[in-house]
């Protein structure tokens, strides 16, 4: 068996779904953030796989795209964690169930 594009795509899909499930189901805001990171990684994996196996000129563009995604993910985590910190400070909890009030 040759390991080809499909293997990576399915791996990416599984990773994406796990991340999706975590993001949907976790109570803790940081847990949700972890799920989102997993989803982004799954997408990155898929993109890099396309870059490796594609013969068209997207081979390079996808990698550039991955670089951008990683940069944006870093920014997102920084802001997300700062938000979690503020929510914690205001509500003494970072459980997403209990921070339903969109105020103060």
């Amino acid at each position, binding site marked *: 068996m040759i390991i080809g594009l499909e293997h990576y795509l399915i791996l990416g899909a599984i990773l994406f779904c796990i991340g999706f499930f975590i993001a949907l189901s976790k109570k803790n805001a940081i847990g949700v953030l972890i799920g989102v990171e997993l989803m982004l990684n799954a997408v990155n994996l898929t993109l890099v796989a396309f870059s490796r196996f594609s013969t068209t000129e997207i081979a390079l563009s996808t990698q550039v795209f991955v670089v951008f995604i990683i940069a944006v993910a870093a920014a997102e985590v920084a802001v997300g964690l700062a938000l979690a910190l503020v929510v914690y*400070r*205001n*509500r*003494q*909890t970072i459980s997403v169930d*209990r921070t339903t*009030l969109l105020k103060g």
Partner: protein
Amino acid sequence: MTTSDDTRLAMQGTIEALTSGGGSEPVVVNLGPQHPSTHGVFRLKVTLDGEIVQDAEMRIGYLHRSMEKLAEERTYTQNIPFTDRIDYLAAMSNNLAYCLAAEELLGIEVPARAQAIRVMFAELQRVASHAMANGTFINDCGAWHTPLFHMFRDRERVLDMFEMTCGARLTTNYMRIGGVAFDLPDELLPTLERFLDDMPENIANYEALLLENEILHARARGVGVISPEMAINSSLSGPVLRATGVPWDLRKASPYCGYEQYEFDVPVGERGDCFDRFLVRMAEVKQSLHILRQVVDALPEGPYLADVPLHARPEPGEAYARVESPRGELGFYLVSDGGPAPYRFHCRPPSLINLSALKEMSLGGTLADAIVTLGSIDIVVGEIDR
């Protein structure tokens, strides 16, 4: 507007957190009793907000040996070895202070040669003790033992001289009521001369290594500052007091053992921070060497011990005698009821009383500053706890 109970509780918690200091939780850290920087079994309970000291409370007593009680059961002469163990880094000074108090109680005149020998050993002890204090202080600033070991070399030579004279290095038990236990051995004076010849070069080396060290300046300048008013009010003494600029030295203010014959000067600092304390100690070592040179040059002949009965029974009364020990004002308060043993034996421990202002010195600084401050006060736990 309706708020559920859940939200209400959460809000209550938030208010508590916000009013108790921005929501960050203070951390209580125990420095000691077993800690590399407490110089013995001494415990400092520090409350930290991040790295900032919010509260510092000391817990002592781990080395309490109840000396003051024990001394009430022993004769005046038998108590001399106890004094060695009070401040084991300056045993000679403690011997001296106790003997002065007992002599005051008994009304004994000490021969001139014994006086000179006492001054000699008290100053040698000061050199040794300051070497240790400065070395460990630099260690507390984070140096990796190098200055400490260099200074230990000097201390080692002093201890060799002690051993030469009285057979002991640390707990000397050398002073006696009315003089000293033994006359000087023949080889002591040449050794001391060599020591005095070598020390200026060594001190120059330390000054070259340490005084212009930018990191040491950054660590010790402006740290653990105390004002002269506060220092006096807190009964601080010794280099800690003099670093604030107060020129109070019992050798000048209340001369004992003929200190008035010797020419020396009292170095004082300017700001009362850790670095000033360090500098004052460095300068005091030089002054001590100066005194030692004068003692050696004019050592009187004669008896080294006055004629004192072994079981002296002083008249009922009290005496408070004090000396300038390396750590500050070391006093002994003796009360006699006419018996062979002191009715009350009290030691005024400079290490303990110098800690009075430790909390004030370390509040608002970082944990590292508190350690440096503690190191600069130069405590000996044996003296704190007794």
